[in-house]
């Protein structure tokens, strides 16, 4: 494929190009536009017969949508969008009284975030299909999604973090997921945080958090934070096999710039990959070697029995300072603003991808250990030893392409690296450091994903490109175009483009897992016997209405196809009405919806056996309709009711009824 002209020379040429690329595409986009590179039998390789299932689940972040999207592979069919960090009026997530708590933070209620990296939970270094973690960048948080329900099970806020990008990558048995701060910031009490920005070097600190999810419940808490000199963290991955017990983070802005980073943070030839001995950190924390420092944060958890969120507020957090603990943290020089930080399936090699570099450095864990033992250091960075580049290097992949970002692996010793600037995937051999194949992407690939490709056991078969730019690939839809992904076969010697598929939000990163590991976990409905919601109505006998001052509470039920009660009178202007609705169905795929005219928040979508609450504040006198929004039976259009609203001073008695013309009860 043709390379853009500008890009043969220096690193500054690369910067200039990246800049042009953002502002006017034609100047820099790879010139081989949409000519077809799809071969004849590609269609049959992605065809999933109507009524049959895909082979893999593909869990794709929604980027600035704040959610997680679920696709089937190889078809690319969108199966579901899981609400995580953003409110979702379609299901009532973030609007119902029970779900609001999932989105509370030390800043109050936050209705949106920017979700970047899904990461599957692991057992023995292999994705197990139990959970999927995902990070919220903007107001630093990590969410855990239960793959039995495809719902957000818990969200934890990360204190002392600013831009939670380097996250949420897991250790081999999901003992921890990590969260490295993108921005460094001043920490501590108010006085220590209120400092001039230009005192970055003295006052700003970075940190990486280790978060522990409880194996039974998924509830998350912060085990410890390791503080670091001020700089930016980008990505990270756990060691495995020989490097089990270590964690690797890419760092940039070791220039410690605090303005115009585009230029000021691209000065040095090398930034760092940071190696953390997390087993040692864990031991130090256990031995009481850390210090508790201020760091207010929320941990929100979804209780599936009460169908409600529970929030724990922590005031502080345990920190470890590597300056006090030799052997905890080492830096390894890595060319030019490393982005991806990926560990091969054996755990022997760590791949740094300098996004402004014209080569890919590969580090050897064995050599890192030797360099540490032999004290082969070239100096220190703010008191932390920097190992010699040559001492820890396995080797460099020379001239692989332009703008290497991320690398995943197959089970046969190959790596697949995405190249944003030259818009391609390059396949190379990890031992030999030789490029063996390359294939263009349309356009400007960011992350890529091989099923199991960042774990001990890649399932291989496909690599999926998550592109940053769509341009002319689909029917245009005004100034804003669909986002998109591309599926390639990696079964043969040559990578082969099979399919383009559109995605919701920005498909930032993704994980893929064989469907067989997830399907058996699926929850079909919530058992009504186990419903412990304080306002549950377990059967129509429990339905009622009650006034508590200005609050009116309605215990209501749904079943195909009526509400009980469906005639309510005695509500007055100035009241707040709480509809506590229990779906009495006990079968798969029978949700009911609830909508009431003038509701200023959302609808409710109720799964079988579940109770949720919608608050409604009437604004005018009269009779207001309510109805079921989810087509539930042939008589769905009959599933409706009325609420009579009277003036504030009226004395209409409070009643709630369902009236049957011919039932003899």
């Amino acid at each position, binding site marked *: 494929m043709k390379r853009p002209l500008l890009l043969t020379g220096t690193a500054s040429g690369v910067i200039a190009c990246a800049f042009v690329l953002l502002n006017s595409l034609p100047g820099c986009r790879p010139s081989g536009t949409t000519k077809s590179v799809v071969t004849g039998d590609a269609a049959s390789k992605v065809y999933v017969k109507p009524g049959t299932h895909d082979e893999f689940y593909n869990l794709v972040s929604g980027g600035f949508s704040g959610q997680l999207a679920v696709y089937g592979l190889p078809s690319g069919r969108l199966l579901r969008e899981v609400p995580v960090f953003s409110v979702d009026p379609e299901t009532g997530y973030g609007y119902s009284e029970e779900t609001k708590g999932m989105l509370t933070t030390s800043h109050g209620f936050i209705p949106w975030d920017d979700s970047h990296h899904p990461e599957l939970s692991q057992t023995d270094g292999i994705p197990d299909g139990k959970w999927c973690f995902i990070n919220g960048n903007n107001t630093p948080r990590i969410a855990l999604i239960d793959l039995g329900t495809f719902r957000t099970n818990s969200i934890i806020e990360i204190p002392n973090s600013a831009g939670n990008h380097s996250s949420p990558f897991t250790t081999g048995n999901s003992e921890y997921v990590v969260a490295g701060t993108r921005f460094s910031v001043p920490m501590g009490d108010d006085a220590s945080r209120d400092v001039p920005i230009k005192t970055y070097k003295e006052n700003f600190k970075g940190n990486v958090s280790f978060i522990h999810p409880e194996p039974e419940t998924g509830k998350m808490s912060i085990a410890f934070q390791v503080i670091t000199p001020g700089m930016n963290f980008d990505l990270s991955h756990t060691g495995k096999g020989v490097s089990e017990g270590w964690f690797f983070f890419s760092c940039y802005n070791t220039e410690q710039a605090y303005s115009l980073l585009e230029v000021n943070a691209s000065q040095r030839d090398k930034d760092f990959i940071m190696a953390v001995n997390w087993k040692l950190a864990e031991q130090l924390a256990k031995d009481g070697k850390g210090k508790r420092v201020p760091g207010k944060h929320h941990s929100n958890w979804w209780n599936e029995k009460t169908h409600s969120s529970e929030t724990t507020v922590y005031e502080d957090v345990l920190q470890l300072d590597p300056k006090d603990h030799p052997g905890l943290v080492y830096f390894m020089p890595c060319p030019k603003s490393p982005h991806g930080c990926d560990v091969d399936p054996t755990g022997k090699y760590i791949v740094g991808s300098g996004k402004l570099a014209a080569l890919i450095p590969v580090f050897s864990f064995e050599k890192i250990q030797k360099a540490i033992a032999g004290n082969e250091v070239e100096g220190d960075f703010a008191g932390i030893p920097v190992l010699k580049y040559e001492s820890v290097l396995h080797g460099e992949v020379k001239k692989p392409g332009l703008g290497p970002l991320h690398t995943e692996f197959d089970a046969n010793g190959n790596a697949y690296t995405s190249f944003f600037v030259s818009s391609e995937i390059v396949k190379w051999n990890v031992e030999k450091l030789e490029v063996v194949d390359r294939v263009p992407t349309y356009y400007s690939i960011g992350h890529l994903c091989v099923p199991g490709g960042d774990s001990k056991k890649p399932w291989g078969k496909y690599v999926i490109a998550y592109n940053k730019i769509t341009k002319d690939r689909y029917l245009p839809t005004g100034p804003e175009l669909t986002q998109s992904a591309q599926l390639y076969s990696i079964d043969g010697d040559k990578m082969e483009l099979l399919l383009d598929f559109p995605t919701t939000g920005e498909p930032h990163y993704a994980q893929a897992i064989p469907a067989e590991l997830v399907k058996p976990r699926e929850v079909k*409905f919530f*058992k*009504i*016997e186990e419903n412990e919601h304080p306002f549950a109505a*377990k*059967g*129509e*006998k429990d339905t009622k209405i009650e006034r508590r001052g200005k609050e009116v509470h309605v215990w209501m*039920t749904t*079943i*195909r*196809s*009526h509400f*009980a009660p469906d005639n309510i009178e005695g509500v007055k202007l100035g009241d707040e009405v709480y509809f506590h609705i229990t779906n*009495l*169905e*006990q*079968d798969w795929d*029978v949700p009911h919806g609830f909508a009431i005219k003038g509701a200023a928040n959302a609808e409710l979508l109720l799964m079988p056996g579940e109770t949720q609450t919608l608050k409604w504040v009437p604004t005018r006198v009269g009779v207001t309709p309510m109805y079921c929004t989810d087509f539930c*039976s*042939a*008589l769905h259009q009959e599933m409706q009711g009325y609420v009579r609203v009277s003036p504030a001073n009226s004395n209409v008695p409070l009643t709630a009824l369902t009236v*049957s013309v*011919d*039932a*003899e*009860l």
Partner: protein
Amino acid sequence: MVEKGKATYDVKCQACHSTGPNRVVGPGWKGVTERRKPEWIMNMMLNIDVMLETDPEAQKGLEECLVRMPNQGLSKDQGREVLEFMRTL
């Protein structure tokens, strides 16, 4: 047994079945154990999907009511208890 059956009825059946002769969503249960064989009733409670596919009487009920009798997730024991409760109507 009858009492347990009644408790299950209140939570899982009452929204659609009266204990009198008249229909709510599904048929009233008064006299159902005289109209129907016990095995047939058990099957309606525990195997509704198969019944609606193969049993002409169940299919006729659907044609009349236009709502599918739902699978309410009863155990075999719960089914027996509800049947005993039906016999008292």
